C-alpha cells in the first residue's frame, strides 16, 4: 500500500521536496519515525499531522491512497 505525504512551509527546507510517496507504512507513528530518519532536519521541527485533511494528535492507521500532510505552525492573516 502507498500513502502520499505532503510537506509545507519550513519543512520543505528540510526535505527538499513538497511531496513524496511512502510504501508499506501501517500508521502515522511509523510514518513519523520513517520520515525523521530520512530527513534528520525534521527532528528539531514543530509540526502537526493531518490525515486526509483532518488534524490528528493520536496514532492513526493508514490505508492505501491516504494523504498525510505535515504542517508547521500557521502564518495566515
Amino acid at each position, binding site marked *: 500500500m502507498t500513502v502520499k505525504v505532503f510537506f509545507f512551509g519550513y519543512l520543505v527546507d528540510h526535505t527538499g521536496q513538497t511531496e513524496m510517496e511512502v510504501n508499506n507504512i501501517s500508521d502515522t507513528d511509523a510514518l513519523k519515525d520513517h520520515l525523521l530518519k530520512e530527513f534528520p532536519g525534521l527532528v528539531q521541527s514543530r509540526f502537526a499531522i493531518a490525515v486526509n485533511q483532518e488534524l490528528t494528535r493520536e496514532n492513526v492507521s493508514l490505508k492505501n491512497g491516504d494523504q498525510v*500532510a505535515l504542517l508547521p505552525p500557521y502564518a*495566515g492573516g
Partner: protein
Amino acid sequence: MKEKKPKNVCLDGPIDSMFIGESIARHQTKTDIGAHHIFLGQVRSDEKEGKTVKAIEYSAYDEMAETEFHKLREAAFDRFDLSCMHIYHSLGVVKAGEICMFVFVSSKHRDQCREACNFVVEQIKANVPIFGKELLGDESHSWKVNQ
C-alpha cells in the same frame, strides 16, 4: 440557517484597495445592513536575522484551507446574527505594506459584526493551514509564525 457552499477565498498576489472599495460599494443595495466591520491584514517589514522583510510569499495546503475557511464561516453564521461575510486571503508574493487578508462582516448592528470579525480573524490565524515565507531581499528567507 441554510447551508452555504464553500467560496473561493484565496487570491493570487496582494489584495488591491480598489477591490476593497468596490466590495464596500456593492453593499449599498443591501439596506437591511446597519454595520460593517472590516479587518485588513498588511505585510509588515519586520527585522529578521539582521535583515528586513521585503515581502511574504504565502502558500497553503489548498484543499484543507478551503475546508477550514468554510467551517469557520459556518461557525460564525451559527454564532452571530450576520447579514453577510466575505473573506479573502492572498497566496503568492505580497510586498511589505500591501494587503494580504480582507475580512468583511456585515450585520444589522455593530456589536455582532465587530465580535464576528474578531472571531473570524482569530479562527483563520489558528486553524487555516497557510504558511508565510519571509523574503529578506537577498536570496535568504525566514518563516513567519503567528503570535
